[in-house]
């Protein structure tokens, strides 16, 4: 994916939750997709990985089985390196997303949800839901907001609300308490990846993630 000027980023809390492996799968798709497009967030993420690395380095060793090394060498000999995955030279989506939806926008099986808006839900674990949204130019982004954490990553086109403009690569974070009416920009349809929490899980995730930003 081409890098572009990204203005709206992930929060430190979310990047740290992803680094430590504590984010639901659906949110992880959006985080991995944004990080694929944003070196600012990639650098932050990798610095949080470094905390995990330091902890691992200091972990007390637990002896492995007597034949562990031999067994690993056998596995390496039996399963030679995987052949590199052949990818389209100009995929429509970053790879963590195309692993779920394919590489081409034309392959998406859309489901109309009214006002010309279409959606396609990703197959992830059900503690949060990730969907692609197709919003015609000038049309309001459907209010998929209930309560809880919500992420919207722009993949094509742009949308704007009263105060802010989100274009390709930008990610909007909301907690459901913000009342706003984003509208797809004129010109071309807006395609985004929208992730919401499963309603019943809301309280737990809300307290986990919607916290004052950690300063680093």
């Amino acid at each position: 994916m081409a890098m572009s000027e990204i203005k709206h980023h992930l929060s430190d809390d979310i990047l740290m939750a992803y680094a430590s492996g504590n984010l639901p799968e659906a949110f992880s798709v959006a985080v991995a997709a944004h990080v694929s497009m944003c070196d600012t967030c990639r650098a932050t993420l990798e610095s949080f990985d470094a905390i995990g690395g330091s902890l691992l380095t200091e972990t007390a060793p637990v002896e492995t089985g007597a034949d562990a090394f031999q067994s690993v060498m056998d596995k390496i000999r039996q399963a030679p390196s995987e052949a590199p995955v052949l990818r389209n030279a100009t995929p429509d989506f970053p790879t963590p997303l195309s692993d779920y939806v394919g590489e081409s926008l034309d392959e998406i099986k859309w489901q109309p949800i009214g006002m010309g808006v279409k959606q396609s839900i990703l197959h992830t674990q059900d503690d949060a839901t990730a969907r692609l949204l197709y919003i015609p130019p000038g049309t309001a982004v459907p209010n998929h907001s209930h309560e809880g954490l919500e992420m919207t990553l722009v993949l094509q086109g742009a949308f704007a609300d009263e105060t802010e403009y989100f274009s390709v690569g930008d990610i909007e974070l909301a907690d459901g308490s913000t009342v706003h009416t984003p509208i797809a920009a004129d010109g071309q349809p807006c395609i985004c990846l929208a992730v919401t929490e499963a309603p019943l899980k809301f309280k737990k995730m809300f307290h986990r993630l919607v916290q004052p930003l950690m300063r680093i």
Partner: protein
Amino acid sequence: MSLDEQTKDRDTSLLEVEPATPAAHDPYLKGVSDLTATSSPTPPDVWARDIQSVATEKNVAAFERLFSHFAPKVKGFLIKSGADAALAEECAQEVMVTLWHKAHMFDPTRASAGTWIFTIARNKKIDAIRKQRRPEPEDVGWGPEHEPDQEDVIGLQQETMKLGQAISNLPEKQRNLVERAYFGDMSHSEIAAATGLPLGTIKSRIRLALDRLRHAMK
């Protein structure tokens, strides 16, 4: 000055930065993991070179050193994460198999060996213990035609050491919180415990390395 001489010079200066017992620097000595498990400060990242030897020449001796040092730590990490001993053993072995196959993806200007192995172990934990898929960002790596700058590698190693020291120096209660967040699945609000860790400089270094990488890829 040849590249080899430069590398040698920098290796020497690195040793001067962090004086410690010779054994703590030498990955070739048996029993080094016992010395480093609790020692602080963390020794320089000699393991990064072993990963690169695995990547470039499929060096089994380097891989065996990495195995002896890291496989028991990965096993300990997985047990702390809730795996029983048998599952932890199996997963630790799979982590090492992945290390072998993906060694060419390791970028020592952005991660220490320990950090990179942590990310493999974390993904294995999500996959095997949590039974979830782990979406990962698109890979960016140097590829065969470019070599990362040694100065960047050493800079990253120094920042990693500082971070390791800062984590060791956290009050025990805070340190436990950080550890449970990364090894367990504790609630994230309490991760604020990590506030104050010197992440700004390591983040800038990684960002610089990414900029260089993007430039080299053009």
